[in-house]
């Protein structure tokens, strides 16, 4: 039927299009060019920033073509899909052929094959064909690999091969790319990426998703017990650390100190140390002690806040010095007793008894500054990530097979020569690194010629 034939040829055309290397290289070049553009136009910046660089017309054009978030634009994703289809089609097109030739190797060396091989040599030898075949076969097994013997008329063919796996390196590599893409899709569909700030002492149970309004419910709670920064002696930051607890129904089930490069993982959700900040103003802790000894009360003072000490007066903190006249951290407080004018004096953290010098029924001591931080955490769940790593591992393996192994084949043919002796032909080929194989072939050739009948 003419119709069927036409659709057949259309299918053929589509198939040829998707299996062509030209398409692969074209897509690679377009991907590379687009990627360059994406690094020149800064991605996902606030509109105000773009207005500083671009005119209204340009902004409209870039927005319409998705260039401000290019890597997630429909056409960039379409390119990636095309790339994957191309890869898959190329594999489906070529792999069966390779499997066929690997499973049914050409074990006989006929004249046609001999002409296509670069490495051949021939010599004549006295003796019975069968005996010669046996001793050459043994030598070949020793030098290269145990040969398969095929008798064809009055000729005997020996064939051995090494490194067949080399033929599959390229397909393993291509498959690995598809696996990485699958992992990425799984992660995008089934996972989430979010960001959360947790104030010290507080906990969260759901996380806002990055770039969206919705929240993900974790199904458990995460509490930040403490956040701190450690510095090098030079003052540069050495460590950003959060002490986190995981709570199930209010009960702590896991506790871990996380730092940058050492995240917390619970039920497939990962928490990464990402940023921090001050949550509200710092407070000063001041203890109120009876001069004659007795229970101390601790006051928490914010800047300028007046706190009543029953039966004594009103205390407020007005200044803080990290190193007051060489005495270390110090707090300037104001004490207002009823009916008296306010007095102002320093408390030294290093000398808690210092305030006894006022000779009052109560003396005060400075216990330290409490700064309240919040920790900023990247939160991610990515069920596809292990698929991606499997793909990556496979890619390294595939590339190494493709580049550093070689499919080497060796043929030897024994046939009767006109003068009654046996003509021996040795031929070889290698799929890669032919120079090295040439040397190997020379060595095998010398050894073969030396074989006694």
């Amino acid at each position, binding site marked *: 039927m003419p119709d069927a034939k036409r659709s057949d040829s259309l299918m053929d055309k589509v198939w040829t299009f998707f299996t062509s290397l030209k398409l692969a*290289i074209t897509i*690679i070049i377009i991907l590379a060019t687009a*990627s360059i553009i994406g690094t020149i136009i800064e991605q996902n910046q606030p509109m105000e920033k773009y207005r500083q660089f671009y005119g209204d017309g340009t902004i409209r054009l870039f927005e319409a073509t998705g260039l401000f978030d290019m890597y997630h634009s429909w056409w960039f994703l379409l390119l990636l899909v095309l790339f994957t289809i191309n890869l898959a089609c190329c594999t489906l097109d070529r792999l069966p052929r390779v499997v066929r030739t690997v499973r049914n190797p050409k074990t006989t060396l006929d004249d046609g094959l001999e002409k296509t091989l670069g490495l051949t040599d021939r010599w004549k030898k006295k003796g019975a064909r069968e005996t010669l075949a046996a001793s050459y076969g043994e030598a070949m097994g020793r030098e290269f690999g145990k040969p398969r013997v095929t008798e064809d008329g009055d000729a005997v063919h020996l064939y051995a091969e090494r490194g067949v796996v080399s033929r599959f390196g390229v397909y393993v590599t291509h498959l690995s790319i598809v696996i990485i893409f699958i992992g990425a899709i799984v992660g995008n569909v089934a996972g989430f990426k979010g960001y959360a700030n947790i104030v010290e002492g507080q906990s969260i149970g759901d996380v806002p998703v990055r770039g969206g309004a919705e929240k993900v419910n974790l199904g458990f709670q995460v509490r930040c017990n403490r956040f701190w920064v450690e510095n090098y*002696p030079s003052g540069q*930051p050495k*460590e950003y650390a959060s002490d986190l607890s995981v709570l199930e129904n209010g009960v702590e089930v896991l506790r871990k100190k996380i730092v940058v*490069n050492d995240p917390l993982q619970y039920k497939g959700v990962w928490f990464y140390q990402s940023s921090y900040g001050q949550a509200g103003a710092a407070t000063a802790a001041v203890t109120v002690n009876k001069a004659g000894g007795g229970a101390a009360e601790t006051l928490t003072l914010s800047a300028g806040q007046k706190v009543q000490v029953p039966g004594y007066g009103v205390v407020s903190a007005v200044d803080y010095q990290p190193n007051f006249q060489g005495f270390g951290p110090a707090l300037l407080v104001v004490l207002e007793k009823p009916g008296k004018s306010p007095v102002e004096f320093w408390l030294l953290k290093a000398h808690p008894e210092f305030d006894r010098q006022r000779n009052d029924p109560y003396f005060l001591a400075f216990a330290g500054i409490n700064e309240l931080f919040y920790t900023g955490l990247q939160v991610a769940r990515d069920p596809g*990530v292990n698929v991606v790593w499997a793909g*990556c591992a496979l890619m390294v393996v595939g590339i190494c097979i493709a580049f550093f192994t070689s499919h080497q084949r060796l043929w030897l043919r024994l046939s009767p020569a006109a003068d009654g002796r046996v003509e021996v032909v040795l031929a070889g080929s290698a799929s890669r690194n032919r120079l090295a194989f040439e040397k190997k072939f020379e060595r095998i050739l010398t050894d073969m010629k030396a074989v006694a009948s």
Partner: protein
Amino acid sequence: MLNVRLFDLTTLLFGVASVNYVAALYGKKDTLARVGTWICIVAAVVSTAALGVRWAESYKMGIGRIPVTNLYESLVFFAWAVNLFYLFVEWRYKNRTFGAFVMPIAFATMLFAFTNESSIQPLVPALQSYWLHAHVITCFVGYAAFAVSAGTAVMFLMKAKQEEAKTTGGVVGVLPPTKVLDELVYKAIMWGFPFLTAGIITGAAWANYAWGTYWSWDPKETWSLIVWLVYAAFLHARITRGWHGRRAAILSIAGFLATIMCYLGVNLVLSGLHSYGGS
């Protein structure tokens, strides 16, 4: 610091070696080139020692870490790798003319390093990871291989032009035949590509462990992908389409330009997460 003195000495040695190789090429004096080889070997020893000393000195300062964490260190490490890769090629191909095209790359790199801050700084929290070692070393071995490939590609283009004109004289006359050059352009990329791949993968693994995303289309990541794509195109064009000679050489040079952009351009021109290498 002793390590910086040793790196300064390395710079000098690379410079002298480059001059020797170029002079040997123009003056057709093989003795000069042979001296160049010995200088390169001494430079390899000195620069290896310098890296070791720098490593040790960082421990003495109480901030011990591998010396590949800022622009200065990555530049000297790159030059170190180029020199070693070059010596390997020279030994393997028994030809000293490559030196005139590859060693100036190492020398220029060291000169650029010389203009950068060379003191040992402690590691910021983001860099404190064992992935750092695997990531930087694989990337730079790859870069060094690409540098050798591009240098050879330049040689190829010069030689090919001369072979077309059917002349044999001059400087170009002593270069290896185009067949050898073409093969080396390809072989160096064959070595560089797996290392670049491993470098991108270790970088992704590290990013995932530090930030929770293995790929965020950050300019550094994107440029490494561009480099990877260019060399992937090279390999496909070569293996399945038989792209040899001129076109392959031009692609190799394009790939190396992309590599330089990825390595230096991104930090110096663009901005992004990967800002450590820029200072």
